[in-house]
């Protein structure tokens, strides 16, 4: 069920309507029923039901056992068992082919005449989300930051709360759990705010992201038809496509939850204004970053293994450099996991994992050198032009990494990179070649015009959002202006949105993760 489909809108409308009609005591049951319907909407068969139960039942039982055995070795054993059960399923459903591909590469390397066939498993929507959410649930109980849920159905709701299944954000039981179960009264202002956010999200996906996708698909699918400039533009376009698609989905999810009365953590904070990759990741998919820091990075850094490494490296390289080695090592592991979480392929591990680590490593190690050079050359860092340079640099570095994220294989990614760096200026001035590329770019002049105007609107909104809550400001305005803007937004989506049979069905980019 796509977040921008009519079916989903209707589904949400009915859910919310029933939610506010029934007594508060039973409201969570409606959310659970809706979540179950959503979970199995496209994919109901015994295999997927077993998948869901194989995470829910062990998590529920182990959660209670961890609580009963808190601060004991037994509790730790339960925790490890719970995590392994969840991870086993996640790996089985998502990463089998990654391992098979690795073995096949190794066999090739050693000239062993055997290749594994890939397997295609039918996994439930949102498996990457609810698996990590349930791991955090167990860990939090173990740490004593939350209590185990004694009602298995409530536990099921926490695991499967339908709005977040497609794209997050990651929720923590301690902060969101109770909000799911306690009832909420209908609130008009909350509804209006939620609807505005949903509309903005739908606009970002249907008007901008899908259009960018048409161009990106054309270039990535027919690389031989395009020169370096178009390939470079496709690289940029994909980053914007990913952002508008992902953040648009989050807007829809947050809007729905806001109407219901459930406050979810924000997942984006104007990432394209970041001046470094480190800052970028503090503003992009915030809840994933926070999850990995809390449940992987810090535990790993504090682990006995890293403490030993810390001691050894300090002895060998001195205090200043030595203490950084376990830090970088933990970071590398975390980024490989982030990459792998995005998908069971090396393209993801490189694009959204290792390359991001490399950027951060370089920022950290070369930063002081760069500062010294700037100082010597008299380059001021506090002026607009330098900040702009930093923002553009960060954007381009991230976009470059996303080439791997978007490509279906490493060789495809290298082809894209090769095309970008095969700079042949004559192709820019050859009218016929240029016209041919324009005609193949997947967008006609009208779509292109709509895209440019929409991107300008998005940019202006992002600029405004740096200083104020745009939604709040809009809702403060007089009714004619306020409604006028809302009608323009609604009809822009209705008329210019890429939906229906005339376009490919909208598919959320993060949906498969």
């Amino acid at each position, binding site marked *: 069920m796509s977040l921008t489909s009519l079916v989903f809108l209707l589904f949400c409308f009915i859910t919310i309507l029933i939610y506010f009609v029934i007594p508060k005591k039973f409201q969570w049951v409606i959310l659970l029923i809706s979540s179950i319907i959503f979970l199995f909407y496209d994919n109901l068969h015994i295999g997927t039901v077993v998948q869901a139960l194989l995470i829910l039942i062990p998590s529920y039982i182990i959660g209670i056992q961890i609580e009963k055995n808190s601060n004991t070795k037994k509790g730790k054993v339960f925790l490890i068992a719970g995590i392994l059960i969840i991870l086993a399923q996640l790996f089985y459903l998502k990463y089998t082919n990654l391992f098979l591909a690795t073995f096949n590469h190794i066999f090739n390397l050693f000239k062993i005449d055997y290749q594994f066939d890939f397997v295609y498993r039918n996994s439930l929507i949102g498996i990457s989300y609810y698996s990590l959410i349930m791991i955090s649930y167990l860990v939090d109980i173990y740490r004593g930051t939350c209590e185990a849920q004694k009602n298995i159905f409530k536990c099921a709701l926490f695991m499967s709360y339908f709005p977040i299944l497609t794209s997050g954000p990651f929720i923590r039981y301690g902060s969101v759990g109770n909000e799911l179960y306690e009832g909420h009264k209908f609130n008009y202002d909350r509804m209006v705010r939620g609807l505005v956010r949903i509309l903005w999200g739908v606009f970002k996906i249907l008007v901008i992201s899908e259009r960018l996708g048409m161009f990106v698909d054309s270039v990535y699918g027919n690389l031989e038809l395009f020169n370096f400039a178009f390939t470079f533009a496709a690289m940029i376009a994909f980053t914007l496509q990913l952002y508008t698609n992902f953040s648009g989905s989050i807007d829809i999810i947050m809007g729905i939850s806001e109407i219901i009365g459930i406050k979810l953590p924000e997942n984006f904070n104007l990432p394209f204004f970041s001046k470094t990759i480190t800052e970028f990741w503090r503003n992009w998919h915030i809840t994933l970053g926070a999850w990995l820091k809390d449940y992987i990075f810090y535990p790993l850094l504090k682990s006995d293994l890293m403490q030993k490494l810390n001691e050894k490296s300090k002895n060998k390289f001195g205090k200043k450099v030595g203490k950084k080695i376990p830090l970088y090592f933990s970071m590398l592991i975390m980024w490989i996991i982030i990459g792998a979480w995005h998908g069971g392929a090396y393209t993801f591990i490189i694009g959204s994992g290792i390359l991001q680590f490399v950027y951060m490593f370089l920022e950290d190690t070369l930063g002081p050198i760069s500062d010294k050079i700037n100082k010597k050359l008299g380059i001021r860092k506090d002026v607009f032009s330098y900040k702009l340079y930093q923002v553009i640099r960060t954007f381009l570095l991230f976009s470059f990494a996303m080439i791997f994220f978007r490509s279906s294989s490493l060789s495809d990614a290298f082809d894209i990179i090769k095309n970008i760096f095969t700079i042949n200026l004559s192709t820019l001035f050859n009218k016929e070649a240029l016209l041919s590329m324009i005609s193949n770019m997947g967008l006609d002049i*009208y779509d292109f015009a709509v895209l440019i105007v929409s991107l300008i609107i998005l940019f202006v909104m992002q600029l405004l959002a740096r200083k104020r809550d745009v939604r709040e400001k809009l809702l403060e305005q007089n009714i004619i202006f306020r409604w006028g803007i809302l009608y323009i937004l609604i009809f822009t989506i209705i*008329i210019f949105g*890429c939906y229906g*049979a*005339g*376009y490919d069905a909208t598919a959320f980019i993060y949906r498969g993760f």
Partner: protein
Amino acid sequence: MKKFIKILVFLIVFVIFFYIVHNLLWLKPTTISYFYDEPKNSLDVVYIGSSNAYTAFNSVLAYNLYGYTTGFLSTDCQPFIYVKYLLKESEKYQKPSIYVIDLALATEEIDNFDEGGIRNVIDSMKISQNRTDAINDILSYREDINKKDYINYYNSFLLYHNKWKDLASINVNIRGNTMLYKGFNYGKFNSIFEPQEEYIWSDELIQLSSENRNILLDLIDYIKNNNINSIFVVPKRYFEEDDNKKLNDAIRIIEENNLKVINCNTTEKLNNINFNTDLYNFAHINVYGATKYTLWFSKYLKENYNLPDHRNDEKYSSWDSEYKRFKDNFKKITDKEFDDVLFEYIKN
């Protein structure tokens, strides 16, 4: 209460805007969508069927000759199953003296109609139970259409909302313009199809497929049960041998049910339609063929169905202006006066 009223007003304004946008972007500019623009009960003849209807019968010429008005509910590649639903649709808005039903595609298997042929009808019809029934009916025959795509048939706006591009293009005849020549569409004026071999109508008979037979019988039942005055017409054109023979079966079934049917291919008075000069392509006559057909068929209708003459009625002045427009354009393209052509045909 105040907030409830606010929501209500917001929704009402939305519905009004949506209605405007919907009408602008959805309805396809076919003879069906323009059919709705004709004043209520203003049409004396309604011609239903495939493109063989609106390319063959010059409605503005018929008006000029006899003063009665003809509306079309005919579309390109129209599945024959839709005739019943278009009859129902017409009954809501018009009370014509006679319905003319084109039989050209009565032999075509329902699976062979592409999405365009289906959409030409359903996307031009106003939203109603009749339209829903028409969609249900064809979808029940079409196992090749994915059930997930059904929504695109019921709510064609999902498909056509991107027609804003057409609105942006000044060359496109968007809905809202007057329909040229009241629906008569003659393709290319001076285009003449050169046949490969001599064509002779065969009297042999092959049974219609059971599906097509049932569709025809269903239509006949509807016509008889509702006392609808109708006449079936097999147009003058080339037919594949099998279609020719199946049409003979269709004619037999219609006649056995005591309904009127004309086969233009065996009508002596239409022998003046010369396949060497009067065809636009394999399946359609051109404007010259259409003129000959209209001269004969308009007279036949006038003589047999007691049709009124509106020529001096101010309310029907648009028919005069469309006839003038037709003649002017005919002159521009062929460099001939239409009256001269007409006079020559009448003389012969």
